[in-house]
C-alpha cells in the first residue's frame, strides 16, 4: 500500500507537466490564429522533401 506515497505524487507531477506545457503554448501565442496554423501546414515552401505524387 505504501507504493501510493510514490505513485500519487508522481501522477500529480505528470499532470503538472501537462499544465506547464499548456501554459507554455498560451504564452507563445499558439491560440491566436487557429485557422492560419491549420492552413500553414499546406503551404509548400519549395525545394525540400520528396516530390509530390498525384
Amino acid at each position, binding site marked *: 500500500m505504501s507504493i501510493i506515497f510514490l505513485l*500519487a505524487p508522481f*501522477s*500529480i507531477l505528470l*499532470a*503538472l507537466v*501537462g*499544465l506547464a506545457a*499548456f*501554459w507554455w503554448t*498560451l504564452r507563445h501565442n499558439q*491560440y*491566436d*490564429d*487557429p*485557422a*492560419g496554423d491549420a*492552413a*500553414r*501546414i*499546406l*503551404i*509548400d515552401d519549395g525545394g525540400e522533401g520528396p516530390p509530390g505524387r498525384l
Partner: protein
Amino acid sequence: MTATTSEDFSAFLRPQGQGTSSLDLLVKGARCAGCMAKIEQAAGKAPGVSAARMNLTSGKLSVTFEGADGDPAVVIAALDALGYPATPFDPAQAAAAHDREGRRLLMAMAVAAFGAANAMMFSVPLWAGLFGQELGPATRTFMQWASALVGAPCAIFAGAPFFESAWRSVKARRANMDVPISIGVILTLAISFVETLQHGRDAYFDAAVSLLFLLLIGRWLDHRLRTRARSAAADLLALQAPAASVLGPDGRERRTPVSEVAVGDLILVRPGERVPVDGEIQVGVSDFDNALLTGETTPQTLGPTQACRAGALSLTGTIRMRATARSEDSAVAAIARLVEAGAQSKSAYVRLADKAAAIYVPVVHAAAALTFVGGWALGVDPREALLRAVAVLIITCPCALGLAVPAVQITASARLFRKGVLVKSGAALERLAEIDHVVFDKTGVLTLGRPMLIDPAPATIAMAAPLARASSHPLARALANEDPGKDMATDVKETPGGGVEGRIGGRLARLGRADFVGVRGPVSAETELWFGFEGDTKVRFCFQDQLRPDARRTIDELRARGLTVEILSGDGPGPVQAIARAVGVDHWRASLSPTDKVSAIAELAAAGRKVLMVGDGLNDAAALAKAHAGMAPGTALDASQNAADLVFSGEGLGAVRISIDVARAARHRALENFGFSALYNLVAAPAAMFGLINPFVAALAMSGSSLVVTLNALRMSRAGR
C-alpha cells in the same frame, strides 16, 4: 524612398525596439493557405520589409520594417495588385486587440481542469468509503489531505476572476452572480479544511474546483462572444473611416489617421470619399451626399468658401478643404456625445442572470442560515448543523445560472452570425427579446439608399447611356445600370454641381441638372436628371429611392408578432409618406433632426414602450444608442454601427425579424434553464438541510445539473428559421 507612390502612411507605423517598426493591415479576401502564402510573399518582397505574417483568423497582416523608414504604401499597393485590398489599422486599436483577459480565463480554466481531475483522483476512494468499502480513518485523512493539497491552490487560482468581480460588486453595493459563487467556494474550502483537520467525513475540495471549472467555461464563452463582436466592429471601423489625405507644405499627400488631423490642415477629398472633419472648401466644387448625415436624399452642391460637414460623401468633384475643427470637435462629435449619453442609460440595464441572482442570493443564504439556527434549536449537534448549512450553500451554488445564460447566448449569436447578423453582447440579445415597438429610419433602412430610375424607356436610356457611363454621380450610375451597352462618350467634361458634357457619335450632348442642360422652368421637387443633344429636345429621367424588396413582408411579420411599427425620418414629408404608404405603416414623422429622434425615442420609453431602433445614418446614431435595442445595416456609418447592438448585412430586412425571433427563443431557453435550476434547488436544498448530502452526491448533482442546462442551451440552434 517613396518612388512608387505619392501617398504616405507612415503615421500608422508603430516603432518597435532596435529601430524597427511594425504595422497592422486589415486584409480582405484571404481565406486559404494559398492566399496566405501569396500575401506573405508579396509583402515580404517589398523594400524595407523584414517580416510579414498573416493571421487568418482575424484577417490581419502584421508587417515588420527594418529601420524606422519603411513605406507601408508599397506593401498596400503590392497587395492591391494581387487582389487583396488592405487597410492600415489604427495603432491604438491594434494594441487593444491583444486579449489579456481571454488568456487569463483560459489559464484559469486549465488550472481548474487540472485541479478537478486530480482532486477527483483522491475523491474516488473517499466516495467508495462512503458506500461501506474498507477505508480506514488514517487512509481517509491521507486522501483528504492529498485532495486539499491539489484542490485548494487550484480553486484559489481559478476562482480569482470571480473573487475580484465579487469584491468590485460588493464595494459598489450591488450583488452580482459572483458574490454567491465566491461565498460558496470560500466557505466550501474553509469547512473542508476544518473537517480534514478534525478527521471528519465532509471534505468537498473536488466539488469546489469542478464547480469553478464549469463556471469558467461559461465565463470564457461569454468573453469570447464579446471580444469577437468587438474585433468585428473594429474591423468595420478600420474599413469605413480610412485616413484623411492631408497635403503637406511641399504638396505631398500624407495619409493621416482622422483623429490626428489638426485645425488648419489642407485636406484633399476625391470623388467617392467622405469628408473627414468639418472644414471650408478652398478649391473645387462637388455635389455632396448627406443621406447618412441627415437622411436627405437630394445631393447638395458646395463650392469655395462654403462649409462642408464631416461625414458627407463627395460625389462628383475633387476638392481641397481647410480643416476648421478636429475630428473630436466636428459636427459628428456632437452626435457622438448624444450617443455616449444614450449608451450610459443602457449600461444601467440589469442582465437576466444578475436579476436572477438578486432573488436567488437572499433566498439561498436565508435557507442556509435557517438550517444552522433551526438545526441547532431542534437539537442537532452545532457542528453537524453548520456542516448542513454549508452543504446547502454548496449544493445550491448557482452553476446553472453562471453557465446557462452564456451557453444560450453564444449558441444564439453563432446562429445569427451565420445569418449575417453580428451581435455585440449578450445583454443586447436580452434587450432585443423584450422589444414591443419597432422604429425604422427610412433612407438606407426601409429603402436601399440608392436611386433607381422610374418608368424606364429603353430607347431614351440607350441614347443617354454613353454619357452616363462616363460620370461617377449616383444618378448617372443608376441610369447607366439600366442599359446593357458599353459605348462611352468622348471628350467628357464633368462640371461638379451641374452635370456632364461629351460627344456621342460626334454630337455634343449634356446630361445633368435642368439649367445645365438648358431647360428653363420651375425647379422640380423630384430627383431628376435631364438629357439632350445640343439644339435638340430635352428628355427627363425621374429617380426614386428603391424600397428594400422584403420591407413590406418584414413589417407584416413584425406586426404578426405583436409589435407596433413606426417610421422616423430626417427626409421631407413627401418621400416619407410615399414609403410609409408602400409598406403600410400609419405612424410616421418626417424632417426630424438627430435630437428630435432621440426625444421621440425618449418619449416612447417614458410611456413604457421597449423600443427597437433600426437606423443607418449619423442622424440615427444617438437614437440607436438611446433605444432599448438598436440595429444597423452593414452599410451604415461607423458611428451608427458603434451605437447599434446588432449589425446586419445583406439586401434584406428579414434579419430584423430573424434577430427578434432568435433573441426571444434565447430568452425562452434561459428562463427554462432558470426554471430547471429552481426545480433542482427545490429538491437539493431540503436534502442538504436534512443532512442527506455527502461529498459524492454533491459532486454528482452539481455536474449533472450543469450538463442538463448546457444541453438545453444547445437546442437553441434550431430557432429562428
